[in-house]
């Protein structure tokens, strides 16, 4: 795969002013072997403490909550604009998409911390660690209501029933349990032979009970409440788990090695990075990497690239860009300055304007990943609007240089000819229009 296609597909595209790597494989391996650390940002503990301070402020000053949220978003955009390790960041984005921690309230303030604490440290580590970190992070526990998942015969539930005999009893909330099986691990499986039953979901909920978050007191983060935990032995898909906090890591370990989980993850990765159809040969290679290398995501990251690079791309660039792909690749092709706060803020708002606001996943199954899901008439018109709007911030670029960076070997000769002063009636009428035509070309809309 050419360096241009490698950066466009496995990174966020080339940056104006930075030469393309000469060796695609070396570009991948260098970042997998020596990855840069996560961008800096506040810990979950710090943002929860700030949250409490703001809420206690009787003047109603919500300063730090808003400051922390924009700092996280701008830190994300700044990193994506500048990074030379686009593959690592894209893998991080894949896992953020996999978990798709949405929702408001306290969760909003913890999304940046979720990415830094749960995803970055494990992105080239082990799948079981990734799932453990993701499923027990305070943002996830709050997002899928595990803070209100009380074992039906736990001490808390029994005490509540005694002192509030007329009120509804406290009990299970199956939200996180259901998504753990359906989205994050084994997936539902075929309708005539489902991977699990409702009893399995209930048992997972009971294993999850008591794993909660101290939002407003120490330790301002994850905490196990033994009184909320459902006593007794649980049976999940044929495996038994003893009561207590250790049942959850044991369950995740089993799920992370379950071949159905590995197929599910392999399929999602193939579709996310390579092709909407998730080609079976690529899925098999990824499955083999995940199962033979002991849950090793570093191995999967290398296989994902080498297997995809070995496959014919017809047409040469075939993955339709998401709004996020479009915004980052165009901004980078224009050489957008990551140190310019307004530019970074514009990138963040562009994601919302095009229907993919950062970290604001509408559903736990994440953003669409296929072309058909992103295709809409108004969505297309908005893409043109945004590109045209963005283009006005760069009134002095040479359109030929931008076309070279943005489109690489796929730049259509007819388009390049239109930037020629001798093109006569075919000449593009302004620099702004020239940049618009580059980014609104079919070649640029795909990666």
């Amino acid at each position, binding site marked *: 795969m050419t360096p241009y296609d490698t950066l466009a597909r496995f990174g966020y595209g080339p940056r104006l002013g930075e030469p393309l790597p000469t060796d695609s494989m070396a570009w991948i391996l260098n970042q997998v072997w020596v990855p840069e650390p996560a961008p800096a940002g506040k810990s979950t503990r710090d943002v929860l403490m700030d949250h409490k301070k703001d809420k206690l402020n009787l003047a109603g000053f919500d300063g730090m909550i808003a400051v922390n949220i924009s700092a996280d978003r701008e830190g994300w955009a700044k990193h994506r604009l500048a990074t030379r390790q686009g593959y690592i960041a894209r893998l991080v984005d894949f896992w953020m998409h996999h978990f798709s921690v949405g929702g408001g309230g306290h969760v909003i303030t913890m999304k940046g911390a979720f990415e830094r604490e749960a995803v970055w440290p494990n992105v080239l580590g082990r799948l079981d660690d990734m799932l453990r970190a993701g499923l027990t992070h305070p943002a996830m526990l709050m997002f899928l209501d595990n803070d209100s998942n009380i074992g039906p015969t736990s001490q808390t539930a029994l005490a509540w029933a005694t002192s509030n005999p007329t009120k509804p009893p406290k009990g299970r909330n199956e939200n996180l349990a259901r998504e753990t099986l359906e989205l994050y691990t084994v997936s539902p499986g075929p309708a005539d032979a489902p991977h699990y039953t409702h009893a399995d979901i209930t048992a997972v909920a009971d294993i999850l009970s008591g794993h909660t978050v101290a939002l407003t007191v120490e330790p301002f983060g994850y905490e196990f409440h033994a009184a909320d935990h459902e006593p007794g032995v649980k049976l999940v898909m044929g495996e038994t788990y003893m009561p207590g906090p250790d049942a959850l890591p044991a369950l995740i370990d089993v799920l992370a090695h379950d071949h159905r989980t590995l197929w599910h993850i392999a399929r999602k990765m193939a579709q996310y990075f390579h092709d909407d159809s998730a080609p079976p040969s690529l899925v098999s290679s990824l499955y083999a990497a995940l199962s033979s290398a002991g849950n090793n995501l570093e191995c999967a990251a290398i296989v994902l690239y080498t297997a995809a690079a070995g496959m014919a791309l017809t047409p040469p660039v075939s993955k339709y860009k998401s709004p996020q792909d479009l915004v980052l690749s165009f901004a980078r092709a224009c050489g957008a300055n990551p140190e310019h706060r307004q530019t970074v803020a514009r990138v963040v708002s562009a994601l919302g304007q095009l229907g993919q606001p950062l970290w604001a996943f509408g559903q736990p199954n994440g953003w669409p990943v296929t072309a058909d899901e992103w295709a809409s008439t108004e969505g*297309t018109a908005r893409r043109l609007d945004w590109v045209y709007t963005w283009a006005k911030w760069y009134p002095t670029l040479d359109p030929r240089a931008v076309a070279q960076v943005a489109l690489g070997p796929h730049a259509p000769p*007819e388009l390049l000819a239109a930037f020629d002063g001798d093109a006569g*009636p075919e*000449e593009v009428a*302004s620099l702004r229009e020239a940049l618009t*035509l580059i980014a609104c070309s*079919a070649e640029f809309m795909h990666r």
Partner: protein
Amino acid sequence: MSATDPRLVVVVLRGAMDGLAVLQPYGDANLPGLRAPLCKPQPGASGGLFDLGGFFGLHPLMPKLAGMYQDGQAIAFHAIGGPYRTRSHFEAQALMESAAGITNASPDGFLNRMLAYVPDGPSVEAGLAVGNTAPHVIRGPEDYGGISKADLDRPPSSLMLRVAEFAALSERPFWWGLVDEALQARLYAWGVTGSFIYSPTQFVAEAQQAAMLLARDDGPRVAALDLVGWDTHARQNEVLPEMVTQLDAALGALRDGLGAAWAHTAVFVISEFGRRAAANGAGGSDHGTGGAAFLVGGAVDGGRVIADWPGLGAGQLYAGMDLDISTDYRAVLKGVLAEHMGFDAAEVEATLPGTLGLSAVSGLFT
């Protein structure tokens, strides 16, 4: 500074406005033979031109400008252009905005050079760049202020057509299908809602903001705006209405927003060149030479068309195909600088270098 300081606004129309369509010489007998499909009905007919003095007619979607003409506040120029004869947009815009002459455009614009002779306000620069980037005409070493608005802009239809054209050439039909649908949807909506849809645009909002600032006793005095989208190579009858409607609404917004200061204002509307006399096969017009321009404002002695008409006959067209140029836009600018801005000869020459031998068009102001 005082409320009666002269104000100058320059509006650059990028992409080459079709002067023969916007300021149609309906009295020229050669016109229908060249471009009947691009012509509007005669004044008085349904959907017809606004008559400007018996030979020229203003585009029917420009009622505000027509009103200013009626009120004696607008002069229309025809067969106007620069000393250059390039048909490249980039090159022509750069030469026009820098007023550099025939070749070698300079990076600074003529409005920037004139800022050296216009006093700044106590807390604001005299120059104002409107929109999210400064037009070339005001860029340069003299400081100037700016205003912008952060919404999404909408590309003009001429540009959307161009996007679709390139998408159609691609091997990837997916994007072409999307663009085509988006384009049809927008053209349909604009067709149904007519001029209503054109008015609430970024450009008009920019004109409103500029007017608010220029109107102030202690505000800026010189402003530059630009409007992209005049390159009407295809489907001109669908594309041009949204452009003239925006321009008309923006001129109205300037007049209304400037209030009492309108009496001390001149707005010069120019484009890099005109378009081919004959229509092309795509329902549009290609790059030409001579074009149209407008000078409007309460300070203007208007209600007339200034045009030493070269004619559209076979022997009269430039290079056998274009309306020729009989008025140099810099001659008009010289008149504006001297009579409206009160510049002396040295200041005029510093702003428009190399124009000593060019006679100013005089008597443009009351």
